[in-house]
């Protein structure tokens, strides 16, 4: 910049001319202007929030952390489900009643042909899995016993646990369907387990 150009620009008031910082790299110098107050407020505010958060959530443990809230929500949902089940009176009789409802049997059949037929075949006569239409049962023939097997599976025999994948209402539906094919005695896989009546 020539002397002449400098004098042209002299009419500008230079802001805080004396606060150029005392380092210089490749001719580049840095000013030490004050940060905007709103910026500083955000910074101090964030620090105060972090401190408060730390104290409330980690020191005092008053607050509920996100993963705790998640667990609480899940637990509450499970409890609500259990409460509904108790209220609805889920027991052997509940499933017998359900198996008399055409809509739930139809829904159960739909689920059965999607997920179960691979092992039990389309009418439940059994292939990999046991024949579900005979009167012999490995793990018991009461609806509540069957419910446990569907939900939790039998890892040693290759029966998957369906409880988490299907959810309770669909498991109930498929169980209601099973009660309708039970004791039909379709010719299929040879009987396994003990004779059982319910």
């Amino acid at each position, binding site marked *: 910049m020539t002397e002449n150009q400098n004098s042209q620009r002299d009419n500008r008031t*230079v*802001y805080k001319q004396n606060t150029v910082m005392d380092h210089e790299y490749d001719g580049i110098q840095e000013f030490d202007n004050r940060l*905007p*107050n*709103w910026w*500083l407020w955000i910074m101090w505010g964030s620090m105060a929030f972090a401190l408060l958060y730390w104290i409330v959530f980690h020191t005092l443990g008053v607050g509920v952390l996100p993963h705790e809230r998640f667990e609480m929500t899940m637990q509450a949902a499970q409890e609500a489900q259990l409460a509904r089940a108790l209220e609805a009176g889920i027991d052997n009789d509940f499933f017998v009643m359900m198996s008399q409802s055409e809509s739930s049997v139809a829904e159960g059949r739909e689920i059965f042909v999607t997920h179960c037929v691979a092992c039990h075949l389309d009418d439940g006569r059994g292939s990999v899995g046991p024949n579900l239409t005979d009167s012999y049962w490995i793990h018991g023939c009461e609806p509540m016993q069957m419910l446990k097997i569907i939900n939790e599976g039998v*890892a040693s025999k*290759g029966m998957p646990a369906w409880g988490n994948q299907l959810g309770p209402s669909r498991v109930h539906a498929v169980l209601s369907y099973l009660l309708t094919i039970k004791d039909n005695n379709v010719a299929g896989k040879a009987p396994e387990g003990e004779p059982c009546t319910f």
Partner: protein
Amino acid sequence: MTEKEDLAAGRRDRKPDLNSVYTINEDGSRNMLQVADVKGRWTTRKYLMYALLIILYVAAPWITIGNHPMILVDIPGRAAFLMGATFTNQDFHLFFFVLIGAGISLFVVTSLFGRVWCGFACPQTVFMEGVFRPIERIIEGRRLERIRRNQKGGFPKIWRKTLKHLIFIFLSWNFAIAFMCYFIPTREMLHQVPFFHGNVTALMWSIFWTAMLYFDYSWFREQTCLIICPYGRLQSTLVDYDTVIIGYDEKRGEPRHKGVDKGGDCIDCRRCVDVCPTGIDIRNGLQMECIGCTNCIDACDDIMEKIGKPRGLIRFDSSRGFETGQARMFRPRFFVYSVLILAMGALFVSRATTRESFQVTVLRSQGMPYTIEDGVIRNLYTLHLQNKSDGTRVYFVTPADDALAGHPGVEYIIPQERVELDRLSDRQLSLFAMMPRSSYTVPVDFNFAVTDSISGTVQDIKVRFRGP
């Protein structure tokens, strides 16, 4: 408005310089700008552009193309609708092309014409200059009137400010709802406003966005462009000697001098400074703060006409243009950027149009690689089939090839060969492959084929048969 008037109005004796941000005072407090009115060619074009864009920004979610809004990001439904196309979460990788494409478009435009995006199309500017500032102007009056009234205080100031802020809050709320329509279908939104049926999340978002917009347009304003937005900071790497920018013709203007027919053409009237929405002096050259709004061009042209000088002391031109009077538009970087953007565009279009209308994945059933019963090895697979198209489809699941043919006694159990799926729905199926133990030697790969009965598209999914 002359410097003297400024002083008379009590303004600090500070001029925009290159060493500091003019909108921040020496003590860090905010220097609120009172931007002067401007009229002219560019201003007219800009307001036209703003009107079109406001209509577009607000109306986009309401326009229906092929049963879906022109734009809708359905977060709970994991789907996005854009210009009639449907994207599901599996298509999320396409977003990469959108982002990169937008980035490179910005590079091309910036290298050619500087920051026209900021001045003409950015929602921040469009709503600030197209809606909020004009309302402020109507209620509070012209620049000098505003400055004087703000200093004087009292009832005339209070009622105007109150009215202005009430209108600002109301408008912010409206624009917040308009913005949320990009995420909530408009017909649902209509029934939900204002309390969202106690949907606390939606209600909190609407309050949050209202507060953000109100804060931004009533107080924060140009700070967004200067300190929050990274684009301005990239300017120095994106523009070059040939980029068309808004600049001051130093050769013609200097030495600036009060009064006509002395020195250069610039009469140092400071109109260009007074109309600047970010508070810079364009005569200091291109700066990070310049959002390319063209206010100073119109302001200066107006003055030049009044003093009988040719227009264009401040104009769109390149640095080369200002120095030599020549222009060079097409330069290597333009071609590099153009090739890049065309490549990205082509990739996006090809990926978006050839993507499958359904997605298949096959996983081995958890917990047991295989089971053996009566001398037969069984592998259980879970096939996950998702219909990504916009209508009900029927799919057929079959074993695809003869990879297992060399093994005698191979059988498959596919319980449901015909699968009907509603739009955007999915299903899991269990599949078996079985092979007598005597046929098995080493793990073999084979394919399941899923056929879309409407389009005839077949997807082969490779799985591995395992045994002892």
